[in-house]
């Protein structure tokens, strides 16, 4: 403990600079990882939602005699005439359905449903999932 010379200013500065450089690099990596993770999570969420919507629609189209699809950007409601409506709603998802068949009644026995479902994430603007499908009841 007799050595009380300490460090010179230059040494201290050098330490700070090296520490600064490396902490910046590590911080950038970490930040990037967190951001990528968020994007991937919302992508995954959109895919699951799209899948479940198309499956529900498939089932309704196969089973019910008539139904309507009501939708706006906040929710999609599939209303079969003879059973309870199926609601899809998620505060983080922007729902889009083309063409605009909202409220129109669909009879699976005669009508064919051609739709494009586009789900967009409200938290990450450029994250979206587009699925195009056809529903027909074979006779």
């Amino acid at each position: 403990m007799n050595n009380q010379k300490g460090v010179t200013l230059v040494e201290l500065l050098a330490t700070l600079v090296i520490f600064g450089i490396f902490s910046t690099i590590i911080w950038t990596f970490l930040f990037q990882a967190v951001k990528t993770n968020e994007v991937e999570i919302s992508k995954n969420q959109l895919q699951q939602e799209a899948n479940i919507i198309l499956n529900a629609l498939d089932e309704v189209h196969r089973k019910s005699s008539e139904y309507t699809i009501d939708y706006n950007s906040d929710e999609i409601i599939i209303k079969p005439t003879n059973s309870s409506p199926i609601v899809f709603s998620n505060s983080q998802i922007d729902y889009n359905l083309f063409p605009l068949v909202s409220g129109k009644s669909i009879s699976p026995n005669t009508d064919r449903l051609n739709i494009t479902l586009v789900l967009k994430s409200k938290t990450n603007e450029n994250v979206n999932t587009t699925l195009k499908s056809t529903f027909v009841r074979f006779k």
Partner: protein
Amino acid sequence: MQKTIKNEQGLTLIEVLASIVLLSIIIVSFLSLFPQISNFNKSTEENLQAAATAKEVRVLVKEEIESMDSFPSKLSFTNERILNDGFYSYIGKYNDFEVVIELQDQPFVGDEPQQNKTRKLYKYKVSIGESDTRILSTTYGFIIRETPN
């Protein structure tokens, strides 16, 4: 113990830098494992789209073939058919996906005589892939042919 504690020379800057460089090389080599989630998501999306496209193509094929009296030599989105062993192959493209349709040339469950017509079912298989080799989704259907007796 006494001896090791008395060695207070520490490390030189070069040694510290060298160790950091080595460490970062090792870390960077492992870093490529983490973005795998993005690849998984990509292939999930492809599978979803392929499944939806398969459903669509199945309908198109059925309607197009049933609107004609005999099996067409080509469909609107495929090349000329190829006769393979027991089935016709139509290969084409739909929505950026590679589509292969295999249609059996013999009826599936023989003749099924009804009152004044005969109904025949021809099985077909729709395969959707990103190339001929990597199949993403498969679905089956039947072409119904009714001929009066």
